[in-house]
């Protein structure tokens, strides 16, 4: 801690007092470091609305309304979700047979639930059908949540396709799941028949 000299006409100007004056910089820096190591002082970490670029090992941020993250030097790692998400609803539904398949997306949508707060959605989409030709593995499917395509992993065999998708955050309001499928070329459009499609989903709502 720096103790200033109370300079008056009667205070001698000497090397000791001048050297004391020279310690102001280090006193401030020492104080700052002490604050960082003071376990009685309130500390708040950086709060962000979007994760910044990673690359500062050890940096911690609170992603507002979601969770605590730390930077491992390359990526942001989620430490814990702070929003208190809990499973609030789930279901399955099936729709329409599949006969023929266009190269345009065939879309089926359903409003599965309505959230009063933000939520996390998980969904999967499967389709089984009879394949009259051997030209399999030329179809595509995907899942949309509120018009946003979910990242997913596609499985395709001769008579079956399925896609699983990870959790997607959605805001309060209706949750609309869209299931889409299509053929990748016209040559594979008419060889599918007697198909069935189904979707499974679950939603975790914040603070319930």
């Amino acid at each position, binding site marked *: 801690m720096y103790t200033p000299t109370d300079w008056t006409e009667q205070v001698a100007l000497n090397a000791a007092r001048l050297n004391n004056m020279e310690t102001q910089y280090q006193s401030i820096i020492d104080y700052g470091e002490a604050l960082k*190591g003071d376990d009685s002082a309130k*500390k708040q970490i950086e709060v962000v609305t979007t994760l910044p670029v990673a690359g500062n090992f050890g940096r911690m941020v609170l992603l507002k309304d979601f969770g605590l993250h730390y930077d491992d030097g390359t990526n942001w790692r989620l430490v*814990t979700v702070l929003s208190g998400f809990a499973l609030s609803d789930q279901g399955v539904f099936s729709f329409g047979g599949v006969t023929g398949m266009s190269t345009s997306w065939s879309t089926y949508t359903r409003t599965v639930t309505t959230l009063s707060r933000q939520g996390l959605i998980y969904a999967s989409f499967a389709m089984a059908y009879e394949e009259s030709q051997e030209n399999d593995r030329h179809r595509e499917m995907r899942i949309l949540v509120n018009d946003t395509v979910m990242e997913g992993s596609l499985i395709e065999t001769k008579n079956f396709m399925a896609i699983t998708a990870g959790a997607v955050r959605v805001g309060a309001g209706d949750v609309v799941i869209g299931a889409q499928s299509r053929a990748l070329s016209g040559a594979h459009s008419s060889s599918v028949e007697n198909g069935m499609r189904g979707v499974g989903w679950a939603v975790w709502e914040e603070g319930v």
Partner: protein
Amino acid sequence: MPYTQTDWSTSNLTVGNLNHAETQYEEAVQDAPDIRTATDIKTYLEVSSTLPSYGNEGRLIYVDGVIYIDNGDEWFTVAEVA
């Protein structure tokens, strides 16, 4: 950049040396924020025997073997460490 002290026992009382001494505050203000991100300086969590009122978003605290974080609306457990 760190301030270089003048040793007045071996230096003359000059305008230059006195003005140099006057730069300490500004140098400290510029360097102090680096303390926040320095990874070689120990950082202690706030330690308390009881969980205080929430309402300070981003506040981390250690209470009786549990680390909590305040999201502004309530305390959440980050980890149990004891």
